[in-house]
């Protein structure tokens, strides 16, 4: 597989995981949340200032269908991370022609 093709396949897998498979993820509290509950410090958690955002809690606000809402939030989040990370790494990378130290 060429680099570009490989990249496209990787992105497709990531979008399918975030957009489709995520619906079937366990809804149990994660390790930290569970430990916080068991040992008695879960109540010290405060709501995030971002809790009212349009994609908060991995749900697209205003989309009724839970599967669609979660899938949309997952796909949008994945694309934002992709854009942010690619942009950052493109700026940080050593340009061809640079002296490698």
């Amino acid at each position: 597989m060429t680099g570009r093709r490989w990249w496209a396949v990787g992105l497709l897998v990531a979008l399918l995981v975030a957009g489709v498979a995520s619906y079937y993820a366990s809804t149990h509290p994660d390790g930290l949340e569970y430990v916080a509950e068991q040992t008695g410090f879960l109540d010290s958690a405060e709501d995030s200032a971002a809790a009212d955002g349009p994609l908060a809690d991995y749900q697209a606000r205003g989309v009724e269908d839970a599967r669609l809402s979660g899938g949309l939030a997952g796909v949008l989040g994945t694309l934002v991370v992709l854009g942010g990370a690619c942009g950052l790494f493109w700026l940080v990378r050593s340009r061809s022609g640079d002296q490698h130290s």
Partner: protein
Amino acid sequence: MHVPDGFLDAPTSVATAVVAAAGMGLALRGARRELDDRTAPMAGLVAAFVFAGQMINFPVGAGTSGHLLGGALAAVLVGPWTAVLSISVVLIVQALLMADGGITALGTNVTLLGIVAVAVAWVVFRALLAVLPRRLGSVAPAAAGAAFVSVPAAAAVFAGLFAMGGTAPVETSAVLTAMVSWHVVIGLGEALITGLVVGAVVAARPDLVYGARSVLAERPLVIRDAQERAS
């Protein structure tokens, strides 16, 4: 293991924010040596993949779940400095957009998942590669071992931070024991996912795996003729 706002007090959150900022600053310098025109898009993809993977909570019994942290996965695929930045981008997007992990706790989360997990994973990975047979087939098992250790390591450091600046009056030893024991189990899931993904990339494109470079460099070029290949 995304720490919400409120678990840790302000001084501890400020201290971890300073550690996170320093770590990301060092990583920006270090990542320059790992990234070029070819690997930069690949590293962006790895960050997106970690974000997606973290959405998949897997049950670990007794009403608990765990999910991929991705520190070992990113470190082995794109290099440890780039991994610190990849995980940090994931955590920033999660905190600001998904309200997953607190905003005042962002420094704590970058420290735990972006720096501690990645650093521990990379050290364990290099150590395992040094003792395993020097061939490509050792890369995925070494990555899995590194992934396994990185999860309880990050959990233990959280317990340490909780001892320093936890806002609730809870016994540190209870938090440490519970955090480490649950995250040993979650670490098994981390190891499985990391081993499978790294194994798949190594099988398809070993040249794209940062952690395979030392093994690839030593692999002698073998010229085989048609007769030998047929036998």
